[in-house]
């Protein structure tokens, strides 16, 4: 595994707080995963107003069509910050807001046949595509994951290809502080796409590791890592955050914090711990994927490649789509939570006196009848044909359209499907062909 030359270490919650504050100070607002209310059963991407808004001591528990949060035992000294996986909402809701007015038109006073058209202000459009005014501080994301970052790139690529992208300077880009997934979710499959669970192209990546402070003679460090609950008294568990800066924007943050002694270079032992933590995470991901893709050969294939695209294309007329989509409700949840699904529709509204008119861009889904409505009717009338459209776009035709995979392997579609259709297992079944 390629490692940054010198990882740094922040100790305990206090160390993480310093990093957070540093990021907060140099950004307009910070987005990250948090609890929308204290009794919430799932994490959502929301604005983090302060360090306290980070979900502490929360572990997410995902299965197809199931999500819950487990609280770690109350312990101020070592409850975790990043043992959860991404929440239901993704940075898509900031890159591409669910609703936004594109233009407004007013009848002119002089001539009732004429309209004054006001486009949504350039500034508003800019902030919507994550390109704020350079004079204003950038937006920051804190604690998002490698799949989120990949999805953000995928979505930006869509905007660029479609000509919606605006050329931007590096300073206008959001500040990206990622966290490694030390506890991957059951529905995750990022490694199938050849990346994860840590992030190597963000500005700064944080990996949360736990060290057994006084390793008892009967407990090895390996078993200490396996411990999920902090057992106070018996073994003192210490929390460290290994920080890797990858860009010219990340490095100054590390330098500033190092100068104030809040960060120090990682020791050899700590680097080994980091490697072990990530290795364990990778191993778990492998197990989760193996449970859904039983075929060894298929599992080892990198799904980001054109191989899967071709395999699916060959199945375009397969009868299996009907089997796969048998329980699909065509409700659109998968596409709403997908961090790369970019389809929108427009809603036109006028006032009662027909003096004003407004066009609003709204998230749409290929699971609605309106999505494929053309002159003469709806193309995708049945649910299986909508399901096929969705899966084939994600894994196959996205390659033709945008030169990469439309799926990033975050597993949200599987988690948030009300009937628990497993996207990965379904895709695997489809590639096997007719049996």
């Amino acid at each position: 595994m390629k490692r940054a030359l010198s990882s740094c270490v922040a100790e305990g919650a206090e160390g993480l707080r310093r990093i957070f504050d540093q990021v907060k100070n140099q950004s307009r607002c910070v987005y990250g995963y948090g609890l929308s209310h204290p009794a919430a059963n799932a994490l959502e991407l929301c604005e983090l107003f302060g360090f306290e808004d980070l979900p502490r001591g929360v572990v997410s528990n995902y299965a197809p069509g199931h999500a819950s949060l487990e609280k770690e035992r109350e312990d101020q000294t070592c409850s975790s910050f990043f043992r959860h996986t991404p929440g239901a909402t993704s940075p898509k809701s900031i890159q591409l807001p669910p609703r936004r007015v594109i233009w407004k038109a007013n009848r002119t006073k002089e001539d009732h046949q004429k309209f004054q058209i006001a486009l949504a202000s350039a500034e508003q459009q800019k902030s919507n595509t994550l390109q704020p005014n350079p004079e204003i501080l950038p937006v920051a994301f804190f604690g998002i994951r490698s799949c989120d970052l990949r999805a953000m790139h995928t979505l930006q690529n869509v905007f660029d290809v479609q000509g919606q992208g605006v050329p931007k300077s590096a300073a206008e880009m959001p500040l990206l502080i990622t966290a490694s997934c030390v506890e991957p979710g059951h529905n995750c499959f990022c490694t199938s796409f050849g990346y994860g669970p840590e992030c190597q192209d963000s500005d700064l990546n944080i990996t949360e590791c736990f060290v057994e402070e006084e390793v008892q003679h009967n407990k090895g460090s390996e078993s200490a890592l396996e411990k999920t609950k902090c057992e106070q008294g018996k073994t003192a568990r210490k929390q460290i955050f290994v920080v890797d800066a990858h860009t010219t924007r990340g490095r100054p943050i590390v330098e500033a914090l190092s100068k104030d002694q809040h960060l120090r270079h990682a020791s050899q032992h700590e680097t080994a711990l980091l490697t072990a933590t990530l290795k364990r995470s990778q191993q778990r991901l492998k197990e989760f994927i193996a449970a859904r893709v039983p075929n060894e050969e298929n599992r080892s294939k990198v799904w980001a490649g054109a191989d899967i695209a071709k395999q699916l294309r060959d199945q375009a007329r397969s009868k299996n789509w009907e089997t796969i989509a048998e329980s699909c409700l065509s409700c659109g949840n998968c596409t709403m939570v997908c961090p790369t699904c970019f389809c929108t529709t427009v809603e036109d509204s006028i006032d009662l006196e027909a003096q004003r008119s407004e066009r609003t861009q709204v998230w749409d889904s290929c699971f609605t009848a309106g999505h494929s409505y053309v002159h003469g009717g709806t193309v995708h009338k049945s649910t299986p044909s909508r399901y096929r459209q969705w899966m084939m776009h994600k894994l196959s035709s996205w390659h033709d359209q945008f030169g990469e995979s439309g799926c990033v392997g975050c597993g949200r579609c599987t988690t948030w499907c009300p009937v628990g259709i497993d996207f990965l297992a379904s895709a695997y079944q489809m590639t096997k062909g007719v049996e």
Partner: protein
Amino acid sequence: MKSKKAGAQQKKAKLAVWKFASCDGCQLSLLDLEDELLLLANSVEIAFFLEASSRVLPGPYDVSLVEGSITTREDQQRIQDVRKQSKTLISIGACATSGGIQALRNFADVDEFTRHVYATPAYIQTLTTSSAISEHVAVDYELRGCPVNKYQLVEVLTSTLHGKAPSIPNESVCMECKRQGQTCVIVANNTACLGPITHAGCGAICPRYCRGCYGCYGPKEQCKPAPLSQKLLERAAKGSASQNELARLFRTFNCNSTEFRAESLLQEERAQKAKKHS
């Protein structure tokens, strides 16, 4: 429908609001339009709206809003008259579009009901079913909901007056729910929610308050209740609905709509079978 010279002294469209078997809630949505009511009164001639005014202008009417379901012989005749007098007929609300909660009678013996409820059942003359307006006359547009969403009502009226297609999506409640960044109550809380198979329009009010959708807007396009029922039953142990509860969940304001009716009967039958076995 109308696009004559705006601003000029054009003849206002005549609006009529009719009531059949209903609770008046949908008509009230019209009076509930606090910000738009004066504008509406300015844009149309309110020609027949007994809930609001005793002033009645003779037909024909340009736009008729019809609330309520057909439950008596008189209503069967009256809706024909309303249709004859209306250029555009829009049925509003669950009663008018599917038969409403009073369509529960469609699952039972109406004679038995009247015997139990009324001292002199012979005075009661009623049909054995409650049915949607569209089962009796041609309807130009159906606006769903129990009650209808007042903003959607304005949208339908405005669109009708100015000849535009109404922006009323026929997608699921989930779409509205997720656009607002709500957490799925089925997935995260094991709540029995009909959102995935229910027509949008309410703005996902119930899930926004961590409650399951009651299906007030009726079945959505491509409505497939079976897989959802199965999933909810699997979650029954975790607090979702039992078979009996499911039968009741499908048998509310839109109980007479094809998909909900079939599913409630199926669940009821299964619940009874299970009871016999145990």
